[in-house]
């Protein structure tokens, strides 16, 4: 195949055997840099391809013939000529595709370059259903691949459970019935009275605001009566870009290229005769601008006569409309209705997880106390359902990895209390219990400030440095610590313990090494010695961690070294 864009040609290394000439030594480092570049994989992949192409021929032949049966049939139905899978049947494409530039590109690319299937999907979304499924999901999976897939993933039940707990699946929303009915009532009321209105929905992330709206928008009785526009404002480059986006979504003609008259066009559209419009702006606080002109004008649209617009804004902060849009309060008809989504309670999270597991027929994967515990922990921190689902997914992962590969130790870093020997004797299909939940929760909420379990990996001199810092903080009069002062104390400490101290340049280096751990922060850039050292961690906690070792405790309590 021909060259790709991603690879940069480097001077090719000459092959030299052992007895070759000496001059070639200086080639080494050009190669060294070449290897360092992140795009290194592409060449390796290429290499492997050439190696394995002969093996894989048998597989791809079968697929190709399958494709050939499929493709003409599709083409008969759809004359557009966009083939869904150009990757597999290049030769056929070259005869049929009408658009020359694409074909040229296809030839230029090597088939290995990941030219995506996505593109084809966008061009003709209607065709989606008829697309040949990706090779992986084909039934004609080659055997060794099948093995590879099934091996690390574990039993089917776990897989189902994990799939059902993914954040993406939202069919029904337990715990949000009240909000759903309220929303629906609001919408239908306005629809019946043919009035327009604005609604502001607030709530912390992960409380199902967007999911609720989506659910309502999917109901057919609502869907047929409204013209719906959903815009997520985070993808806007600037606040004013929203007008262009709305116009695009409504497909109103008459937009100039610069997009300057966007506001005028929309306002014109609103007073003209049209179906009731439901405009949903997600993450509306992204539209904040200098004088909030965009937000004001958007919130003023519903008050226009005959606008028939229902505006729904979604954001996190409870008081957004009061804080940044105070002028809306002045006129009664402008004032948006407010709705708040409270964080999920413990019982609600429990219900969500168990209903999801029920749907997937995997109820016995979790024991109820385990879910209870997880739910209460998440509810106590944030009430974010995304977090709860992610944690439960990780718990299942952990459990399945225990069972599939008992030889391997658990994948989460700080679990120490699970003995591998005990695990081996356990039954194969054991439901997830509290222990795993605790393990994962510790990983998520445990934070980074656990020095005690990395005692051994923390170098001695760095420990001494921290001890000196604590010594000054605990016993010293002047809490204003510079690197220079810290160094003096550190030298005293070293002298007293008969440890050879490092010199200044190394010491500064050491400070920055500790800084990467987040224990302390060196403030100031210019001259290292005059920089201030601030402790980032909790002093008492660090104190306690270091007091464990006799020598460290001695140092911390030895005021003579100051």
């Amino acid at each position: 195949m021909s060259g790709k864009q991603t690879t940069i040609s480097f001077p090719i290394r000459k092959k030299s055997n052992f007895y070759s000439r000496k001059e070639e030594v200086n080639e080494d480092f050009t190669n060294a840099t070449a290897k360092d570049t992140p795009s290194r994989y592409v060449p390796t992949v290429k290499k492997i391809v050439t190696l394995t192409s002969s093996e894989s021929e048998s597989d791809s032949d079968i697929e190709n013939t399958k494709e050939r049966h499929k493709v003409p049939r599709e083409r008969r139905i759809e004359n557009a000529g966009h083939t869904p899978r150009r990757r597999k049947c290049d030769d056929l494409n070259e005869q049929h595709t009408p658009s020359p530039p694409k074909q040229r590109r296809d030839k230029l690319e090597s088939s290995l370059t990941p030219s995506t299937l996505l593109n084809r999907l966008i061009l003709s979304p209607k065709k989606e259903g008829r697309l040949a499924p990706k090779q992986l999901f084909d039934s004609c999976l080659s055997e060794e691949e099948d093995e590879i897939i099934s091996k690390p993933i574990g039993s089917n039940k776990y897989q189902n459970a994990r799939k059902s707990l993914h954040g993406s699946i939202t069919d029904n929303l337990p715990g949000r019935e009240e909000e759903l009915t309220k929303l629906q009532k609001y919408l239908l009321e306005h629809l019946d009275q043919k009035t327009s209105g604005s609604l502001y929905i607030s709530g912390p992330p992960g409380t199902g605001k967007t999911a609720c709206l989506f659910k309502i928008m999917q109901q057919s009785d609502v869907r047929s009566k409204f013209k719906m526009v959903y815009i997520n404002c985070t993808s806007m480059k600037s606040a004013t870009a929203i007008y262009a986006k709305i116009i695009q979504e409504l497909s109103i003609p008459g937009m100039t290229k610069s997009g300057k008259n966007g506001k005028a066009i929309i306002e014109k559209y609103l007073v003209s005769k049209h179906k009731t419009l439901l405009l949903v702006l997600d993450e509306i606080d992204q539209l904040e601008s200098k004088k909030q002109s965009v937000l004001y004008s958007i919130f003023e649209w519903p008050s226009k006569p005959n606008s028939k617009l229902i505006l729904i804004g979604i954001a996190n902060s409870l008081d957004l409309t009061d804080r940044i849009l105070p002028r809306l309060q002045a006129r009664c008809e402008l004032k948006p209705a407010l709705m708040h989504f409270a964080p999920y309670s413990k019982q609600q999270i429990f219900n969500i997880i168990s209903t999801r597991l029920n749907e997937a027929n995997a109820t016995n994967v979790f024991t109820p106390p385990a879910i209870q515990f997880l739910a209460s922990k998440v509810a106590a921190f944030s009430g974010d359902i995304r977090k709860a689902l992610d944690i439960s997914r990780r718990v299942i992962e952990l459990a399945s990895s225990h069972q599939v590969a008992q030889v391997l130790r658990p994948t989460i870093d700080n679990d120490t209390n699970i003995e591998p020997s005990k695990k081996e004797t356990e039954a194969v299909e054991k439901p997830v219990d509290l222990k795993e939940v605790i393990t994962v929760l510790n990983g998520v909420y445990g934070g980074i400030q656990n020095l005690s379990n990395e005692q051994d990996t923390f170098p001695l001199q760095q420990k001494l440095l921290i001890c000196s810092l604590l010594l000054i903080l605990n016993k010293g009069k002047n809490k204003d610590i510079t690197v220079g002062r810290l160094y003096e104390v550190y030298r005293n400490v070293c002298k007293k313990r008969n440890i050879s101290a490092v010199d200044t340049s190394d010491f500064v280096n050491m400070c920055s090494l500790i800084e990467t751990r987040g224990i302390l922060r060196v403030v100031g850039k210019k001259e290292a010695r005059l920089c201030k050292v601030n402790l980032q961690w909790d002093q008492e906690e660090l104190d306690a961690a270091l007091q464990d070792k006799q020598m460290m405790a001695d140092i911390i309590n030895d005021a003579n070294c100051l």
Partner: protein
Amino acid sequence: MSKKKNMAIDFQDNMILLTRKYLKRRIMCPETKFRHHVNERLHVMNLVKRTVEIGESNSVLLVGPRDSGKTTLVNSVLKELSALKSFKDNAIIVNLHGLVHTDDRLALKDLTRQMQLENVVEGKVFGTFAENLSFLLDCLKSGDKHHSKPVIFILDEFDLFCEHHNQTLLYNLFDVAQSAQVPICVVGMSCRLDVMELLEKRVKSRFSHRQIFLFPGDTSSSEQPMSAFDDRLELFRDLLSLPDDENVNKVEQQYDDCTTDPQFGSMWNDYIKSLTTNVTMVNLLKRMYHIDVSERSFRNFLAVAVSTLSEKHQKLEVNDFVEASKIFSQDDKLLILEGLSILEMCLIIAMKQETEIYDGEPLNFEAIYNRYMKFANQNSSVQSVQKPVIMKAFEHIKNLEILLPVGNTNTKFEKEYQYYKFTLTSQQVIEAVKNYPGLPTEVSQWASSSI
């Protein structure tokens, strides 16, 4: 006869040069072979694999200090996976780097290019930022679990992506990962341990809270547990030994041009092994390990030691390592001081005394000048120099940034009265006085005299 002898010598010379070449490349080139952190590696591997094979969307952050093997880990995972046919055919890998893609516009352009989307023609991306973003999101949204290729995003220097405007890119990537769209796997690498605090709340909520911490020298999870320093010794041995005859061409394909003589190789390896039992050597390594556990600086140190090999110097002695370690541990401020003239040395001593007397208060030229003149008048042997010359010397010291101006440095003050802070310790000055070749005795006496 003599010719044959020459040949033999040639052979030996060549051998040592090739050895040097081989070792240098081995030390300096990052490998995809990954040591330690077995569990973490398995974790990442499973995540990426699941994204590609089941179509699950994932996000993960690899956090660890610099040089803790984050990139190596990801590289090794990808290399191993790319050997699988199903992975290689199906996955798209997108590499983004926070230092290169300094804003979302650049990142998006490169992302589009690497994904080979429709608006890319011969490596150039058309359209504005907003167009590109909406196009990309449309692409990602229109795909679903079963029909589109999984995309693996690898974000290096993840913390720099957090500084982008509104974190738009991150929000959108994590949003796709949370919803039923194209299966993607976002792998972020960062050296900041508090990277989660940089994320906005909505971005944080969408992130899966899966952080994997890597600490260098953490050997607890490796195949055979051993102490951290033993592992360093092992690395030392590993990096400096030549390949055995069997695995020359099989295992290490990238070094295929160095086919070593097995006899020489085994001799060399035995020697290196004996080095690791040498007391001086072990002490040196231990000392270095206590200061700095990172592997990169250790490799640099080895590279310096290895580059002393030559035709005349055929073996790595312990002394070579000691010399090499000196390069890394010497104080560069002292080296600067050694290069100063005697007059400048005198001024430095004056500054030292001035700071000692007034306990770190800032000083100006006049004070130093007076102190110096007092010394010069007492000792007749010291030539008195004119004031402009001393000023010149003072400015030279200032330019070396041994003196730092205090407060604002605009031209409000005459330069004689501008206040400076002295940045050397008195110990450093005394050390420098000791090391200075041919310093007059009066000066060194003056330096050591207490006030």
